[in-house]
């Protein structure tokens, strides 16, 4: 597994643990509303698990296993580094916005940035992966 995939998969696993912890707190609060403020984590739970875990894991594994280019290389890694940064900054800001939305309404503007970062992450990964969607080379 290349270094960049290791980084993406490990970061995805960290988000997985965080996302399930948030989800567990939300579900417990739904049944036993001792701390109703924890309900604010619901949106963070969705950002973390859908993008931080699922999308990032898929990108990390795809970078590892997609067919290599003609020269036996994976191609330009810079768009994938950009994708990695955009996903993780986006998810972190999404969590921040969800947690503090009730106390700081102006933070809703962060959602514009989060959306733009998610879009950039998708476009950067597409830029990298598109030429690698091809038949495996003979003998590769």
């Amino acid at each position, binding site marked *: *597994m*290349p*270094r960049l995939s*290791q980084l993406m*998969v*490990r970061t995805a*696993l*960290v988000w*997985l*643990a965080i996302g*399930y*912890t948030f*989800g*567990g*707190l939300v*579900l*417990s609060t*739904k*049944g*036993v*509303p001792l701390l109703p403020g924890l309900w604010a984590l619901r949106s963070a739970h969705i950002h973390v*698990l859908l993008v931080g875990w*699922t999308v990032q*894991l898929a990108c990390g594994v795809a970078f590892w296993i997609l067919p290599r280019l003609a020269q036996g290389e994976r191609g330009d890694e810079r768009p994938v580094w950009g994708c990695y940064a955009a996903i993780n900054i986006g998810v972190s800001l999404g969590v921040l916005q969800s947690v503090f939305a009730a106390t700081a309404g102006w933070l809703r503007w962060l959602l514009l940035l989060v959306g733009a970062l998610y879009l950039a992450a998708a476009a950067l990964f597409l830029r990298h992966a598109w030429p690698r969607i091809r038949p495996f080379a003979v003998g590769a």
Partner: protein
Amino acid sequence: MYPQARFFIRTALIYLVCAFMVGALILFNQALEIDGRIAALMPVFYHLLMVGWITQLICGVSLWMFPPYSRERPRGDERLGWFTYGALNAGLLLRAVFEPLHAWQPQPWLGWMLAPAALLQVLGIWSFVAAIWPRVKGRPSSPRPQQ
């Protein structure tokens, strides 16, 4: 494919079918207005699909295909994988039963059942992270030739 991975993947496939049965019921209800209580199944549908199917499939395939832990123990400590399987499914099933029941009859004891459902799923996922973490690594370097 070794037995633990087969358990994860077959169980994930069963959840896929169950999730779409619940999803179809919700859609039929939206079209035909059969019973208003069916709408309370929406969170169960999402979690059968995302936890039971997607997450469990990822667990099974990654435990099967990720680089080996070591030559002697290619899958590391398999007990972590079994704990993940048991806790994740027990937690999800508890949720699938008690979340709609609590929505239909909001009695305190039904609500309290959601706490172990949450705890089991969280512990199951932490256990999966512990199991797979040491297997996220590069190809082992080939041994040096003997001199």
